[in-house]
């Protein structure tokens, strides 16, 4: 296991994945550029390229935002239209940023970015306060069950570093957020442009007693974010070496989706319902004594049971729902087609793929007002809707609020194979 001498301190670095959202011009690119610049993630040749572009465009200053700007087509349109992933590290943690554009059309991207995040940063311009878009971003964070939300109140320099203004925004936001399900909300007043409270505590805001944004990102407790209670192992691949040395070896490979597995544990195989015990948990580096999310493992069982991809190993006294009727909140991604009751699609869930029919569209959610809309039940790009699906053979699932992996699915077009929607399973 990990050596602990100072030199190899990276051997106990953790990983934190966060998403960022804000409306256009709230300073999101500047903030990300600042985080990367101050943690020395930006290299000279990247900086030079950006300086050159800034100069060509006739910008006054080097635009740090260009550092995180993506593809040419988007640059020409002057907007960001897809999720971009960025990386930086401090001695404590490695960070993966899902950088998602904030415009209303891009609910799709925000949902995508949030699906793998432990934390969301929502930017608010101190001058404008909590606006419709802040509410939308927060709704998506709660819908996707992000544990930690940071509301970064930016451009504090433009409101004279005012504590009153900050407190007013905190009050407004809390007022709104009380209608949402967000376990932890942290408010930080910052200036992305000048660096206040981004990496170092600001001298301009002595009234603020909390930590800087980076310190918060480095220390927020992410241990229990995954489910360690309900043991779930979706079988991904059956390993059969067919070699002399491993003649009768038959192992089941997969990534633990929840709970803890140990050798000797009694398990039930779904859908067959047969019981057996875990003989060993193998890895290339040797056998291990326990496995939990996100480990990718290989298990062998005491008994010879027919198991294939799409099956799931669980514990006999803790089973997921096994059902063909699914109730889900979905976010529609496709520009090419819409969704209506009666549509036939494919569902991908854990390692299974099954045919499905949309039994009904219950309602759509207006992402700005959170109101239900029931008059027009055709679901289009970037819309969020509650639907009932019936699948051709049962899925083994948990509620999304209990397990993000066994509770999530995507809808796929059976002809174009396009990914049409992401869905979060609710209890019926």
């Amino acid at each position: 296991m990990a050596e602990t001498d100072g030199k190899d301190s990276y051997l106990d670095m953790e990983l934190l994945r966060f998403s960022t959202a804000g409306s256009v011009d709230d300073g999101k690119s500047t903030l990300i550029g600042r985080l990367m610049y101050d943690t020395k993630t930006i290299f000279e040749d990247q900086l030079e390229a950006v300086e050159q572009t800034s100069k060509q465009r006739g910008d006054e200053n080097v635009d740090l935002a260009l550092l995180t700007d993506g593809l040419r087509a988007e640059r020409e349109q002057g907007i960001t239209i897809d999720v971009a992933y960025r990386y930086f590290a401090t001695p404590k943690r490695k960070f993966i940023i899902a950088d998602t554009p904030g415009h209303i059309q891009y609910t799709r991207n925000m949902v995508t970015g949030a699906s793998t995040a432990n934390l969301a940063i929502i930017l608010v311009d101190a001058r404008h306060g909590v606006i419709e878009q802040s509410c939308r971003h927060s709704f998506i964070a709660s819908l996707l069950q992000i544990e930690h939300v940071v509301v970064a109140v930016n451009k504090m320099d433009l409101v004279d570093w005012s504590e009153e203004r900050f407190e007013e925004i905190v009050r407004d936001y809390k007022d709104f957020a009380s209608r949402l399900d967000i376990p932890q909300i942290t408010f930080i007043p910052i200036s992305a442009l000048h660096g206040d409270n981004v990496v170092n505590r600001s001298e301009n805001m002595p009234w603020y007693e909390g930590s800087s944004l980076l310190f918060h990102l480095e220390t927020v407790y992410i241990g229990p974010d995954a489910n360690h209670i309900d043991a779930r192992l979706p079988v991904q691949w059956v390993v059969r070496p067919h070699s002399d040395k491993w003649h009768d070896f038959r192992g089941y490979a997969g990534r633990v989706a929840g709970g803890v597995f140990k050798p000797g544990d009694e398990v039930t195989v779904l859908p067959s319902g047969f019981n057996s015990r875990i003989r060993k948990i193998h890895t290339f580096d040797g056998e291990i004594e326990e496995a939990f999310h996100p480990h990718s493992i290989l298990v062998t069982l005491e008994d010879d049971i027919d198991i294939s991809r799409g099956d799931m190993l669980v514990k006999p006294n803790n089973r997921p729902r096994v059902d063909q009727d699914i109730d889900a909140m979905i976010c529609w991604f496709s520009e090419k087609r819409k969704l209506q009751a009666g549509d036939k699609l494919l569902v991908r869930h854990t390692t299974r793929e099954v045919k499905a029919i949309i039994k009904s569209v219950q309602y759509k959610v207006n992402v700005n007002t959170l109101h239900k809309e029931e008059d027009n039940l055709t679901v289009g790009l970037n819309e969020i809707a509650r639907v009932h699906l019936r699948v051709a053979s049962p899925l083994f699932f948990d509620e999304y609020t209990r397990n993000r992996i066994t509770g999530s699915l995507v809808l796929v077009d059976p002809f174009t194979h396009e990914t049409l929607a992401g869905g979060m399973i609710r209890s019926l």
Partner: protein
Amino acid sequence: MMHRSYTVTHLEHLESEAIFILREVAAQFQKPVLLFSGGKDSICVAHLARKAFWPARIPFPLMHVDTGHNFSETMAFRDRFVAELGARLEVASVQASIDEGRVVEEKGALASRNGLQTVTLLDAIEKHGFDAAIGGARRDEEKARAKERFFSHRDDFGQWDPKNQRPELWNLFNGKMNAGEHFRVFPLSNWTEMDVWQYIKREKIELPGIYFSHRRTVFERGGTLMALTDFVTLQEGEEPSEEVVRFRTVGDATCTGCTLSKASTVDDIIAEVAAARQTERGTRSDDRRSETAMEDRKKQGYF
């Protein structure tokens, strides 16, 4: 007894994710292939593939797109490495593409075969009927890659359309496609150069010698130090000299630059990467032809 907290290091996380992706490829595609350049990233991918399917062998072949402009050390390393893995190796040769008239070699002193690789690669994918080509590219390498997917869809011309990529949510990857299309798959998407080096150290992975400092005859071209090999012709004003250098990437010997370095162990390199002020690709002249060079090549079907 209280259980220790369920924390996982970033390297464990990245390794588990890459193994998950590799197993998805084996399960979702009929005929995958692992693109093996002999560079450290593809060595890591091959190492991860061995771990993903152990104790069985890797259930797909490796393929080297060979420009013919190789450093001899990397070729010897390649053959040894593949033999040890017990994997099958296919070689797709750029020279053969030139001989068959599929491509025309660039002329002039600054000619490079990097651009030609795309045709050789796409031809080989078509010839073998590969439906997924696994590569070692990372999102941190270059701006155009920041939005790249794990499962990157290519149309029936092998082209990448940034507007037509599938959203990837949670652990769910959609590898379904129509006839003639294929996917590029990047298990190291979320790794940085530093992560790769830390992983090489943790796993004690062996690398070709050119990654470590050694004496070599070099010359300067366009601000980059280039190795003097049989494949390059010196231009006026270019003076060869002997220096202690190492390479940060392995590619076509005519366009891969090296840096002055005394880093002779993985630890030295980790220290060097931590202090580095230039990206790896900063030493590749093909990426500096224009600011969007990489993006343009990707659209045509480059790695």
